[in-house]
């Protein structure tokens, strides 16, 4: 059960997932070392050189302020990683706690899970929109809002799994040894939830990208001065006929990244849950 062999198991024989993983690593490196890779400052405006076509100087062209789209895309990777990781951590901690505690303490569960049910009744984007209009546009608030949206599904999933684990004999055995509630929850139940949590994390990461891009596009996500792929789409959408590459590159980046995360998530789920094995050969 060591880490490296687990990774090998996930990616062996799954070419597309491996390519996806490599792409994610590229994004991560770009995010970490954005100032090194970006040829220009993403905020440097150049009114004379606006709306340039892609060239050797500006790989992805320039936008309506003359900013280098390639540099902005690289800095946008930063936001991708920050928003993704932030929402995953938020959703897993909040949703995980709600799900586990609700399943373990039945009465508390009656209350908490009904609240979760109500939140889940809203379409994800609508819920995010409502919450975003209540808060001001900022990175933290975007993370919190997307986190809340996906905390509900996480709570649902963990509720069911904790309910099942709660009835396991080893939990009874721990009770007989005198273990208290926190020890049973965090020492006996939680470690058995790690694999589903990992899979859940990969899907939240993917959906958070789409959600964040959608919020940016609607002008409710990150503040406009922050270069993110969603903001770039939103700002340049009126130039779609004159400079379509301004929309093309961020759009392609979003699609490829979300697709990669999904491929990796699928591969993780397949290798963890033997029931799904060989369903999608080659993926």
């Amino acid at each position: 059960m060591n880490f490296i062999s687990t990774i090998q198991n996930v990616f062996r024989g799954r070419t597309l997932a491996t390519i996806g993983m490599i792409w994610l690593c590229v994004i991560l490196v770009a995010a970490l070392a954005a100032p090194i890779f970006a040829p220009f400052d993403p905020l440097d405006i150049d009114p004379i050189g606006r709306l340039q076509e892609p060239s050797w100087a500006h790989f992805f062209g320039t936008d309506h302020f003359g900013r280098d789209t390639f540099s902005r895309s690289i800095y946008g990777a930063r936001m991708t990683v920050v928003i993704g990781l932030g929402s995953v951590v938020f959703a897993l901690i909040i949703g995980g706690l709600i799900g586990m505690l609700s399943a373990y303490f039945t009465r508390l569960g009656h209350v908490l899970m009904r609240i979760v049910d109500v939140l889940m009744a809203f379409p994800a984007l609508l819920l995010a929109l409502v919450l975003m209009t209540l808060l001001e546009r900022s990175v933290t608030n975007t993370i919190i809002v997307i986190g809340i949206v996906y905390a509900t599904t996480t709570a649902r999933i963990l509720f069911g799994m904790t309910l099942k684990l709660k009835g396991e004999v080893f939990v009874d055995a721990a009770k007989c040894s005198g273990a208290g509630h926190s020890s049973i929850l965090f020492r006996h139940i939680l470690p058995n939830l790690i694999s589903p949590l990992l899979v859940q994390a990969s899907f939240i990461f993917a959906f958070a990208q789409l959600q964040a891009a959608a919020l940016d596009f609607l002008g409710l996500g990150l503040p406009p001065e922050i270069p993110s792929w969603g903001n770039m789409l939103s700002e340049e959408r009126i130039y779609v006929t004159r400079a379509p590459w301004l929309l093309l590159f961020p759009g392609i980046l979003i699609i490829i990244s979300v697709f990669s995360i999904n491929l990796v998530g699928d591969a993780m789920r397949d290798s963890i849950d033997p029931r799904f094995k060989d369903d999608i050969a080659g993926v």
Partner: protein
Amino acid sequence: MTQPAPLLQVNDLKTYFTIGTGGPFGSGKQTLKAVDGISFEIHAGEVLSLVGESGCGKTTVGRTLTQLEPATDGEAYFNGTEILSLPNSQFRPLRREIQMIFQDPFASLNPRLTIEQTLAEPLHIHKLAKNRKEARVLISETLQLVGLDPKVMDRYPHEFSGGQRQRIGIARVMILKPKLVIADEMVSALDVSIQAQVLNLIKDLQRDSGVSMLFISHDLGVVRHISDRVAVMYLGKIVEIGNRLEIFENPSHPYTKLLLSSIPRIKPGRTKVEDLGEPASATSPPTGCAFHPRCAIATEICRSAQPEMNELSETHVSACHNISQLLGGHA
């Protein structure tokens, strides 16, 4: 024969479960009387077996006594303390003295914890070891006691066979030096060849440590091997209780006779007792004596009145209306 106060005295224990769902769309609530008024005692150093067919409530007795299920009614005195009504916080220190071995050795060990972590947990909870070093010493002693190499403590449960896992389960219990061990079908999930080994191990451990045991089983061959006394359960009630020889050589209750005659035998000898029916449902038990629909000697009174406990000797008690006829027939 005067005996000192028993280690465990159970009086009229009842554990009921509510099954089904109420409300306008539910199938209606029913009460399942898993344990319906049983009384027994266990003395220090004694092994009492609880036998009966599946669904008779014997496992629930063990789970109620360890507070894994709440008791509906009744009392259980452990060393003079009533334990069924104790709140969780006050029962926790007593858990060290009342330990349980579970049936399924594959499910009773947390797959994510090493053997050391599993065995160290009770030590730390009950403050029997100050640090990891002390715990490791105790763990290796206990592992040797149950016939395992102390080196195994760094491994995970999936690396062990069923018999080895059950030894680990026994180690988890014995490491606390309990006064009462409740063994719930502890060998029935194992291969027959392994059963004997594990059974001999627990018998030796019991004899050496003088721990009392409530040995829950449906396997009379195993019970005969290990018990001092035997209690026979049918549909939530004890129908006969007595010393091992009294039960095996001189059974009085028709149900005990039925059970004994169903042990497979190679040599012909004992005549088979006729079984007239299926076990009744615990949600709607028959009136009168619960066993009467299956009983060959049932009379009118069996259908209407619940039988009393008849004392056959100081140690042997049987609940049957036709006890005199049975004894006459046996003599």
